[in-house]
């Protein structure tokens, strides 16, 4: 009689480690769901970017409808931080300590992410695929729990600098930049890229997000005699700058940064004919670009938007960004399988070799490893011909 309970105990003891080894969870993941936390500026000066959070939420609704990831539903918990760092700290703590999410994903804004950088690493919670292009997120040695996603701003600035040096070594460069971390990062990239030829910059003018127009700044740049213009602005001001430059008859070689290269949000309002000749870099497909009209991935994206995010603007490239980065997380979580610990999520995110999704431009790939926490480092130079962003040259970066 005593043998049965002993045998049962033995069987249980032998079976359990094997069973346990298959599923590992950290707070925020279990058999039924995976909780992903996020902060986005749904209000305040940067509220235009709030659509990214909504697009990602819609994407995971679609994933859930299709059965979830490895049978688990994704619970998307996103809070508004109004682009204010103290609010981001509060919301991040809420997500980690109260809502018990597995990871923080695509938290938006350089100051917002800077504010929670130390906290996330101290708490050992992944701060994954942050929505900012600052260079400091690629530091696995000191901040192993933080990883970026998009090509960083300094690299982009350097690429433009290299292009100027190669095509017009006698150029006189005028720069308009937004007076915050985003603008200054691009500016640093260009200055570093020019190296000892930094004297080619004849004028740098800044503007604040609260300025009604940048018309005065454009007039200043024309007066400085610059024949090359690096336009570091956010969409509204980019449109103003492009239009004003054309209207006052200033025709420089015009580089516009990637964030403001959207046909729908910038070029169309400015006037397509005024944007001819614009040079930028890109790593995603622009939804309004004619050359992708019949492209399968853009068609799939449009169907997704119609069904899951009907309020979303089909002309806004941010919605393609949100969709693509959500696909990246989808892949990471799929790779993690049943081992949903925070450490494993970071491990999988740092083990992507040559992975891509079709809304990225041809040739762009995601590469990460233990020492490289910058997923997308390659971009394509593009030039606007009045209708489409035509790719030229090779893919730059890794």
């Amino acid at each position, binding site marked *: 009689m005593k043998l049965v309970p002993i045998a049962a105990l033995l069987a249980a003891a032998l079976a359990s480690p094997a069973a346990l080894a298959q599923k590992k969870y950290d707070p925020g993941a279990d058999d039924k769901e995976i909780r992903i936390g996020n902060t986005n500026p749904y209000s305040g000066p940067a509220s235009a970017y709030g659509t990214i959070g909504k697009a990602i939420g819609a994407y995971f609704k679609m994933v859930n409808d299709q059965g979830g990831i490895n049978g688990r539903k994704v619970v998307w918990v996103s809070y508004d931080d109004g682009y204010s760092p103290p609010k981001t700290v509060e919301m991040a703590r809420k997500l980690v300590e109260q809502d018990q999410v597995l990871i923080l994903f695509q938290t938006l804004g350089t100051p917002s992410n800077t504010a929670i950088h130390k906290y996330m690493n101290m708490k050992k919670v992944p701060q994954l695929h942050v929505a900012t292009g600052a260079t400091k997120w690629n530091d696995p040695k000191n901040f192993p729990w933080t990883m970026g996603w998009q090509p960083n701003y300094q690299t982009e600035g350097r690429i433009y600098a290299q292009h100027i040096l190669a095509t017009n070594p006698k150029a006189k460069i005028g720069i308009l930049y937004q007076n915050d971390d985003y603008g200054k990062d691009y500016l640093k990239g260009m200055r570093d890229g020019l190296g000892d030829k930094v004297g080619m910059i004849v004028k740098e003018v800044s503007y604040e997000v609260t300025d009604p127009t940048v018309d*005065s700044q454009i*007039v200043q740049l024309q007066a400085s005699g610059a024949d090359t213009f690096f336009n570091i602005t956010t969409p509204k001001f980019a449109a103003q700058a492009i239009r004003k430059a054309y*209207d*006052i008859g200033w025709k420089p070689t015009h580089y516009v940064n990637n964030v403001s290269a959207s046909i729908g949000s910038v070029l169309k309002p400015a006037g397509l004919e005024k944007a001819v000749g614009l040079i930028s870099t890109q790593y995603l497909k622009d939804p309004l670009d004619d050359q992708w009209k019949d492209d399968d991935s853009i068609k799939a994206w449009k169907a997704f938007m119609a069904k899951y995010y009907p309020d979303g603007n089909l002309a806004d490239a941010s919605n393609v960004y949100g969709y693509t980065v959500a696909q990246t997380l989808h892949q990471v979580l799929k790779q993690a399988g049943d081992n949903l610990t925070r450490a494993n999520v970071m491990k999988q995110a740092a083990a992507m070799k040559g992975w891509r999704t079709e809304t990225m431009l041809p040739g762009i790939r995601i590469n990460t490893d233990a020492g490289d926490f910058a997923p997308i480092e390659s971009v394509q130079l593009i030039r606007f011909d009045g209708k489409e962003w035509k790719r030229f040259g090779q893919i730059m970066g890794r």
Partner: protein
Amino acid sequence: MEALLHQVLAGLATGGIYASLALALVMIYQATHLVNFAQGELAMFATYFAWTLINAGVPYWPAFFATVAFAFVLGVVIERVVIRPVENAPVLAVVVVFIALLVILNSVTGWIYSYTIKTFPSPFPTGGVFGTKLLSPHELGAIGVTLVVLVLLYLFFRFTPLGLAMRAAAQNPDSARLVGIRVGWMLALGWGLAAAIGAVAGMMVAPIVFLDPNMMGGILLYAFAAALVGGVDNPWGAVLGGFMVGVLENVLGAFVIGNELKLAVALALIIGVLVVKPSGFFGKVFVTRV
């Protein structure tokens, strides 16, 4: 020298924007002795209404006048429904109500229309004889419209009985009631007119800065400064103040202090003026006897 001229012209263009909203602020002040922080958002909301009409195919001028009428009605309704309950509350409570209005209008507009910028058409011809290269025909036209509104306002307050009644209601509500003026409706009328002027301002501004829910935020500050530096009870002063602020800001930014601090310096100068001349350049000085 040429660069200076260019900046001055650009300053007149932006100054025109400030002047038009400053007129709405002066209007509301003359009618209610309060400065309405939500004026900018009201103007922005009305402009979105116009955009919706134009997008639905309504031609520009009918849409323009329909929007002005809509804004007028909206202003009256807001005064009667939202402001009336706090008529007798401390001034600061009313300011909080304004802030609440500001926040509600901004948030609702962003929700309905999203935050992507939209183009807004201009009724003025593009290019050609009218404008120089630095002042587009629209910017010139917008200044013109502002001046027309200014003249209409001045005539209204100075020469019509209704305008007189409104001024009386704002300055001395009790005496005005004794003479038979319906003070409540004067206030509502004042709000309606201010909202209408704001709508005009919004429709003039949107083609220049592009339509988005945060369009009026920065402009409101400059308009506020412009209205005060010109004398908050004087529509001419407000318009002149607007041009002054626009030119000052541009010239300071380009030649004196750089773009980073031009806002701070412009405002410091304005405050300096107010410290020396507390009722603004053209405001009336009120002497109260004790």
